[in-house]
């Protein structure tokens, strides 16, 4: 069974929510990818989303853009990422998603890309600029053949009919974008958002939801998790990496703090 599907079916949610953490491959340094991945798992992240850096990430705010630019300067590429992830399944048990924009994937070759994902043990993809109709007509059969899930996004502006359609073709989870924004540009969970989350709840979708955009700490994570299966942290974690002097420790501390309020951590 796909690790993502398995996670959502079998995690005994005590209501605290599943934590998905995004980071950019090849950041802060080219060969930090697997270090960060391992530390996230060790810290208690439930899923990990590895960003494939791109020169023109239109859905991302400044923090993630800068991490993309830095990773590209470091020499990061799709080919190198697959080399880095080769053999990760010896140690990494959490579901791993690759997030990125479609052009680098197309240049690698969609078939070759999916085959490589399966080979290294990637479970799903998030490609925000891949249109649903193109996915269904051209790529779904290839994704399916390699056991890869495609994760779709919904936003506060997505119509109810389209949410239903996305729910129909989704597997794993639905990425719920909390507000009309690019990543990292707003923080917090407002009253408007809560009514949107409640609307989604009332729709009784077949897929679980993870809420992303604006999740930055334990409070926002807990609030989002009360409306969904869990939440996704991206920009706030990139800022941790930017400032870190001790990656392993800082990552583990951050993840623990997000999942359990700081008071709960024994001194």
């Amino acid at each position, binding site marked *: 069974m796909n690790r993502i599907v398995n996670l959502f079916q079998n995690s005994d949610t005590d209501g605290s929510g599943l934590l998905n953490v995004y980071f950019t491959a090849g950041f802060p340094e080219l060969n930090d990818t697997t270090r960060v991945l391992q530390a996230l798992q060790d810290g208690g992240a439930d899923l990990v989303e590895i960003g494939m850096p*791109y*020169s*023109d*990430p*239109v*859905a991302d*705010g*400044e923090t993630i*853009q*800068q991490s993309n*630019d830095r990773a*590209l300067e470091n020499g990061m*590429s*799709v*080919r190198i990422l697959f080399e880095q992830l080769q053999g990760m399944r010896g140690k990494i048990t959490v579901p791993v998603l690759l997030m990125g*924009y*479609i*052009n*680098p*994937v*197309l*240049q*690698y070759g969609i078939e070759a890309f999916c085959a490589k994902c399966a080979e290294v043990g990637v479970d799903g993809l998030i490609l*925000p*600029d*891949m*249109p649903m*109709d*193109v996915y269904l007509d051209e790529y779904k059969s290839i994704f399916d053949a390699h056991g890869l899930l495609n994760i*779709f*996004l*919904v*936003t506060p*502006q*997505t*119509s109810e009919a*389209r949410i239903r359609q996305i729910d129909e073709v989704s597997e794993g989870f639905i990425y719920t*974008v909390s507000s*009309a*924004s*690019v990543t990292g*540009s707003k923080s917090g969970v407002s009253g408007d958002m809560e009514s949107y989350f409640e609307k989604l709840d009332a729709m009784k979708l077949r897929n679980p939801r993870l809420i992303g955009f604006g999740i930055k700490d334990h409070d926002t994570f807990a609030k989002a998790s009360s409306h969904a299966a869990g939440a996704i942290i991206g920009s706030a974690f990139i800022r941790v990496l930017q400032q870190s002097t001790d990656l392993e420790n800082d990552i583990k501390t951050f993840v623990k703090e997000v999942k359990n309020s700081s008071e709960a951590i024994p001194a």
Partner: protein
Amino acid sequence: MESIAEKKSYQVNDRGYYGTFGGAFIPEMLYPNVEELRENYLQIIADPSFQKEFNDLLRDYVGRPTPLYPAHRLSEKYKTNIFLKREDLCHTGAHKVNNTIGQILMAQRLGKKRIVAETGAGQHGVATATVCALMNLECIVYMGELDIERQAPNVARMKMLGAEVRPATCGSRTLKDATNEAMRHWINNPVDTHYIIGSVVGPHPYPDMVARFQSVISQEIRLQLNAHIGRETPDYVIACVGGGSNAAGAFYHFLDDEHVKLVAVEAAGLGLTSGHSAATVALGKPGVLHGSRTILMQTEDGQVTEPFSISAGLDYPGIGPQHAWLAASGRGTFLSATDDEAVQAAFELTRLEGIIPALESSHALAVLGRLGASENETVVLNLSGRGDKDMGTYMKYID
């Protein structure tokens, strides 16, 4: 049973594609905005009240029709019959305003309160700021930090017109980054804002909508050419291409006249093999850029590369999807001209005809000698803009 060979179409199909190019490769955050436009644009354009307002403004405000000028001395030099379509005489100095007039009327009918746009050299930014002043709409223009430094007069014009010019400080700090920022702004303000894209690029329906607004160029050419030579179709239509909006407008009503050769001229920068070029069709590969499947300049790993041209208006790593299809299908001929060839052509036109062309348009002029047009043939060249904005560059060549 085999059907008879299907007539090839060069216009967008009902799924938003030109052959294999086009579509709407956009994140979900932009889907409702683009979908709203897609559902409404054809109906709005077809509405008689829209048509009247659009045509009235093109006539009374922009100054259309622009002349189709028989350039006698230029024709003599190249031993053929050259007509210049004088888009340089449009209000604001280039064809760009045809599109911004159309889109501001579109935005009003969609109930939008604010306009966002990207600009490279500042021509589209000025044309957008102009129509926003005219219609009293708030205007935000994103411009690469580097371009803001290079194009100070246009920045001043935009500010005087009341627009807010915001620098794009990420990436290469030029047109492609300004486009990214404008898209992000639209993501952050999805309900009350309309994004006026300046060229035939972006997700469907933008390439088709912009081409329709610019198609007035070829519509006029047909009538004017008929008055000059007694037939509506020339042997050649030449235009420069960055994203390709002036070329799309100049080609539009000739696409199905297969005997009319459509010649698009890209900016070769310092030369095709120099590593400093903006000749997308010559150097690019199919991929996805700014919402459509097209041809773009990119690394092997699919990262978008930074183009180079003396002309900021052609300094774009992609090309409109319709042009990608014209290139791939063979309907269009794609040539390129270097910085030096363009500047030389600008001086030549100035001295022969007393017209100072924009650097962009000069790229089209630069291939006149390479067409092989005979003395019985007719060439229409779209002179897309005037050279006032480029005087700083031209003066360097005078010394």
